[in-house]
């Protein structure tokens, strides 16, 4: 039943987006693997890794748009869920090193040897098994979001106060993960990975597959988010965003809806983080940096808040620009440029880049009454 629901969800634009993703997932890795290096169509391995990273960010932006664009929860701590998913994957990858590190200890990762630890902390147990790690990738961010949301939303913390405590959440986690005795590699984080599911993370084939998987994950994330926002629950989310107390007086338990969507979003962010780590080869506490989480909000705002596709697009565009501008002479000015772009988009493109596309036809008019459909295009559907 869920499959049918998922496939019903996308609209015309959604199918185009999925089509493009499918094409990217197949063509780009093939151009990397099979096109000869001197061919103009050849995609270098570094380009592949870079764009794989963008796809992970796109999924992250999508998850943020689900809570911010549709439910009005401005999370300034979504980087935390992304990083937690990344760390869960990193722990799996660390355990795969087993015995091949500099200290050649059969179980303990190098950084623990370096700290003179004698045995593996309990919370590292089980991470040598991929299914367990995969579960944790979704479960840990999800559980944190659930507990956090449960308390925050039940106490009716909203607006800027909520944004501030999400920011505090990611900051606190960053400080924790920086500590060596936390057991996650301190400020070096987790790196020097060897294998994933028995394949070398450096091998071109593995990288190609990871890239394709990132595109697939983005597509699935889009379908899931689209299914949620197109359902009646999605209408409730928009209702909460626009008139929270009205929704309450209609009998909806607003806190349950918020907790639900926040948790789903955190799980998606976790998956994005998990796909990101093997492609960039490292996860460290800087991923928790508050500034990162704020930048994500800019991606979404630039692409078009409350459109899902726009959020994904915004993440790719901003990060692409970032890659260009942070190399070379312009590097020190990147943040100024980002700020300028953000201001310009807010002023001239309030609906983001996606707002540039022509408006879609209004929904079929049922009664033929010729009523002018609402002036503003409805971003929600």
């Amino acid at each position: 039943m869920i499959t049918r629901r998922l496939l019903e969800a996308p609209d015309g634009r959604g199918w185009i987006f999925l089509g493009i993703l499918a094409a990217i997932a197949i063509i780009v890795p093939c151009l990397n693997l099979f096109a000869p290096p001197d061919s103009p169509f050849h995609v270098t391995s570094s380009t592949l890794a870079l764009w794989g990273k963008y796809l992970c960010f796109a999924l992250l932006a999508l998850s943020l748009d689900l809570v911010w664009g549709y439910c009005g929860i401005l999370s300034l701590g979504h980087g935390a869920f992304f990083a937690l998913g990344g760390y869960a994957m990193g722990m799996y990858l660390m355990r795969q090193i087993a015995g091949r590190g500099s200290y050649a200890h059969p179980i303990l990762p190098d950084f623990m040897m370096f700290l003179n630890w004698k045995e593996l902390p309990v919370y590292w147990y089980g991470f040598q098994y991929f299914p367990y790690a995969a579960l944790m990738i979704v479960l840990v961010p999800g559980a944190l979001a659930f507990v956090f949301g449960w308390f925050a939303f039940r106490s009716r913390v909203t607006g800027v106060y909520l944004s501030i405590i999400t920011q505090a959440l990611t900051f606190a986690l960053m400080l924790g993960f920086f500590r060596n005795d936390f057991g996650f590699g301190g400020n070096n984080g987790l790196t020097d990975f060897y294998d994933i599911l028995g394949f070398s993370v450096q091998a071109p084939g593995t990288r190609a597959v990871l890239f394709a998987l990132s595109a697939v994950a983005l597509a699935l994330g889009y379908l899931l988010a689209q299914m949620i926002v197109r359902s009646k629950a999605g209408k409730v989310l928009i209702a909460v965003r626009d008139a929270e107390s009205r929704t309450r007086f209609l009998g909806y338990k607003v806190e349950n809806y918020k907790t639900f969507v926040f948790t789903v979003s955190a799980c998606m962010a976790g998956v994005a983080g998990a796909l990101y780590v093997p492609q960039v080869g490292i996860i460290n506490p800087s991923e928790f940096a508050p500034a990162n989480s704020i930048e994500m909000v800019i991606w979404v705002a630039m692409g078009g808040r409350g459109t899902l596709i726009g959020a994904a697009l915004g993440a790719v565009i901003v990060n692409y620009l970032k890659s260009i501008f942070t190399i070379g002479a312009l590097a020190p000015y990147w943040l100024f440029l980002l700020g300028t772009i953000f201001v310009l988009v807010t002023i001239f493109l309030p609906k983001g880049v996606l707002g540039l596309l022509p408006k879609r036809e209004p929904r079929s008019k049922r009664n033929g009454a010729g009523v002018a459909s609402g002036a503003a295009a409805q971003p929600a559907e």
Partner: protein
Amino acid sequence: MDAAMDKPRQITQSLLYLDGVSVSFDGFKALNNLTLDLAHGEMRAIIGPNGAGKTTMMDVITGKTRPDTGEVLFNNGEIDLTRKDEAAIAQLGIGRKFQKPTVFEEHTVEDNILLALDSDRRVRGTLFWRLNGDGDRITQILKTIGLTAHRDRQAGSLSHGQKQWLEIGMLLAQDPKLLLVDEPVAGMTDAESMTTADLLRDIAKDHTVIVVEHDMEFVRRLGVKVTVLHEGSVLAEGTLDEVSANERVVEVYLGR
């Protein structure tokens, strides 16, 4: 459950019974030992000068504000509303229209009604919900509130009066036992006010309704029992003519 847990009380025959309700904000007594008794099927108009406690009374009934003292009993005294939150009270069958029209501006008129329709309010329920027969009820409600032609319009683009009607329509869709309507004709033209009065009278045929209003013409048009609030308690009760003749009421309204 709740009925069993609550101590047996003297069973009132009222749908809503407020007994000795007091609320104060920073020393200001918004409600002062307020007692109000509303029978099943009754429509009641509540009037009173600014600051008389009309909106606070609605807040207490709908769970937005907890009273310092007093009881708010619903449905023959079965349920104590002071222990429930807004969503739970709404699900018990108490609908509220705000003073300022509050509709979901980004949704279509149809979706506004749809969200209000009496149905499963849980996340699971709405996530896997499908349209079935709700369309007819929506059509019927839109006909009642005269917004049939605007079904697919975004609610945000409606006029002020139309938003008020849409909100009344959302109340109807909830199919509540009790409707609380706060200043439904504020900002309306005379013609719109009259239409609204007729609409409310129509609704009152099979619902219990409390209307809070300033506009005396409108209250006269409703032609129902009137309660006058003043400084958080009941000053007078009766037909509009009776209370208009009451010296204390005249004094309060025409100034001291």
